[in-house]
């Protein structure tokens, strides 16, 4: 039997490299960019981990590598005690999933950001939702149709819409179809990659409510990837903040927002506009100078040192390790014991 205390997902020192386009014609040597540069975290059963960060920080790549939609270049991904990062085989000069990894698709699924690009426009909703059932030989005939009906009801869509095509639906409804497809095989883990950022403001709350309800009803474990920290905090038990391929801070969702310790987390939180004019005008905003460095050519030492208002010499030379500063709260910063910036986060 599975041990309930064991995390469902355990990621250790995950690295994902992407080859860069060859700089010279016929050159054999390919430079690589490190999109994920040694990330570790674990997610307990039934919990939701929020991954936040700006574009290019590696949060989506991390999510895809957890699901083995990308092959990790190094490190391990253990799912329910199984070393799934090893379940790849070399086939025709390329890496492919072995049979065990194919079978594991039933247990872990992805919800995409763009509900316009992620549904095949030439398939009806019924075909979209039966495809995973057919692939795994689950249910047939009337039973299969009943399952599709139940799935649509679960995500709050009228089952009579089954014969329609994706273009007949709004963005929010399409996202519901995407969620229904992810749920079709009864997964334990859902990775939701920016599931609300393409939706209208008045629809975002509907989808967040749906995800929270499904998580409770189906006891799902979730990795929720987004740049909107207020939304991430709403759904997550724990939050990990990423910067240039690394986790710089991880803690309980409420604690990281109320008392952020890494200078980057502090700046990120202070940059979120609050829908409250009085507080918005009273607070002390940290506006970072400079831009996100390129991960093709990452800075030495601490990856944040080029923009950090507290930087010291040591930060330029040595990368700080992720260290526990309080139970369940880890920070990668040399200066975490110093008095922090005058920030009023919320």
């Amino acid at each position, binding site marked *: 039997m599975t041990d309930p205390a064991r995390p469902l997902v355990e990621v250790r020192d995950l690295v994902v490299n992407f080859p860069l386009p060859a700089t010279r014609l016929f050159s054999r040597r390919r430079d690589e960019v490190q999109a994920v540069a040694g990330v570790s975290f674990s997610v307990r059963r039934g919990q939701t981990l929020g991954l936040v960060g700006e574009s290019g920080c590696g949060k989506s790549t991390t999510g895809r590598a957890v699901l083995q939609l990308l092959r990790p270049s190094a490190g391990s991904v253990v799912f329910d005690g199984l070393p799934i990062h090893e379940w790849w085989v070399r086939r025709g000069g390329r890496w492919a999933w072995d049979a065990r990894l194919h079978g594991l698709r039933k247990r872990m699924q992805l919800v995409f950001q763009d509900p316009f690009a992620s549904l095949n426009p030439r398939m009806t909703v019924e075909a979209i939702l039966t495809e995973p059932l057919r692939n795994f030989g689950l249910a047939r005939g009337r039973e299969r149709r009943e399952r599709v009906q139940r799935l649509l009801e679960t995500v709050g869509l009228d089952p009579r819409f089954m014969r329609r095509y994706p273009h007949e639906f709004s963005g929010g409804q399409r996202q519901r179809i995407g969620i229904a497809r992810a749920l079709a095989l009864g997964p334990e883990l859902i990775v939701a990659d920016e599931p609300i950022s393409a939706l*209208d403001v008045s629809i*975002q709350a509907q989808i*967040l409510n749906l995800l929270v309800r499904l998580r409770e009803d189906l006891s799902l474990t979730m990795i929720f990837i987004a740049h909107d920290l207020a939304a991430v905090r*709403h759904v*997550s038990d724990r939050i990990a903040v990423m910067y240039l391929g690394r986790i710089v801070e991880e803690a309980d969702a*409420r604690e990281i927002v109320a008392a952020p310790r890494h200078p980057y987390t502090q700046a990120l939180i202070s*940059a979120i506009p*609050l829908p409250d004019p009085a507080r918005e005008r009273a607070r002390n905003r940290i506006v970072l100078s400079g831009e996100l460095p390129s991960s093709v050519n990452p800075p030495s030492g601490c990856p944040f040192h080029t923009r950090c208002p507290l930087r010291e010499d040591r930060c330029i030379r040595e990368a700080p390790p992720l260290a526990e500063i309080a139970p369940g709260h880890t920070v990668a910063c040399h200066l975490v014991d110093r008095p922090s910036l005058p920030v009023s986060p*919320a």
Partner: protein
Amino acid sequence: MSDQDPDTVLEVRDLRTFFRTDGHIVKAVDGVSFTVRRGETLGLVGESGSGKSVACLSALRLLPSPPAFHPSGQILSRGRELLTVNGRELQQLRGDRLAMIFQDPMTSLNPYLSVARQLTEVLEVHKGAPPAVARRTAIAMLERVGIPDAARRIDQHPHQFSGGMRQRVMIAMALLCEPEVLFADEPTTALDVTIQAQILELIAALQASLGTAVVLVTHDLGMVAGTADRVAVMYAGRIVEEGTTAEVFATPLHPYTRGLLASLPRIETPPGGRLEAIPGLPPDLGHLPAGCPFHPRCGLASDHCRQQRPPVVTVSPTHRAECFEVEVPR
């Protein structure tokens, strides 16, 4: 009347912008009125399809006609009526008095031309500046918007700039002739949060030093809370509520505004709870419901909401909403 108000730099009256598409008419903007005063920031808030961007594009007459047409409306900039001026005058007004920046700077900068070409052209056309003067002015403006090493970077092409830097170039270009009104259509939506903070700070600083009024078009209520003096909330081509930022956030009148504010996950509320989502979907502008366009999604809708356009109810000299359910304070 605001014609006499010397502080009014732009007045839009009963503007309608319709599009003729195959078979029917899409009413993107359906009777919108607002004024912009010198140096202020007006937040124009709404979801996609609410008409906020089309209202701005109409105000600069940037929409191709056909398919767009204006069955009614006046756009007044210092006594000139933009909807009727000829092409030459329009060219002068755009840039000189009114300018616009867009969400995606890459699609609004010409990828083939150097930044220098694109900036100096503005000054040569509008101010008749000699090339050397135009170049000096352009470099000074790039420095002002925070582009390091501006004298060298001005000769680069747009693709050599990052997203945040490109938006700075756009802002520099828009402000070269020191316009009275800058329309900023989702100026930071394509940018990361920490870069967004930089750009908003830059716009506020330039606004303070140049006295430019800003019409900030956005879906982000948080951004409006921090930067706008007044807010106009748009729904289905109408301004359904308008007031000072403090009024709209503290005592929202329209059920749509109240719904939007209630639906936001907030950094201070207990996580995991149920958000008060607005039910239903934004309306199809080609097939608007009768009566109040918000009635299919409104918890307070009654029979007259389904049949008649709601009246404009004014609750303070600055605060008004279009709704049957608003109570007028005595």
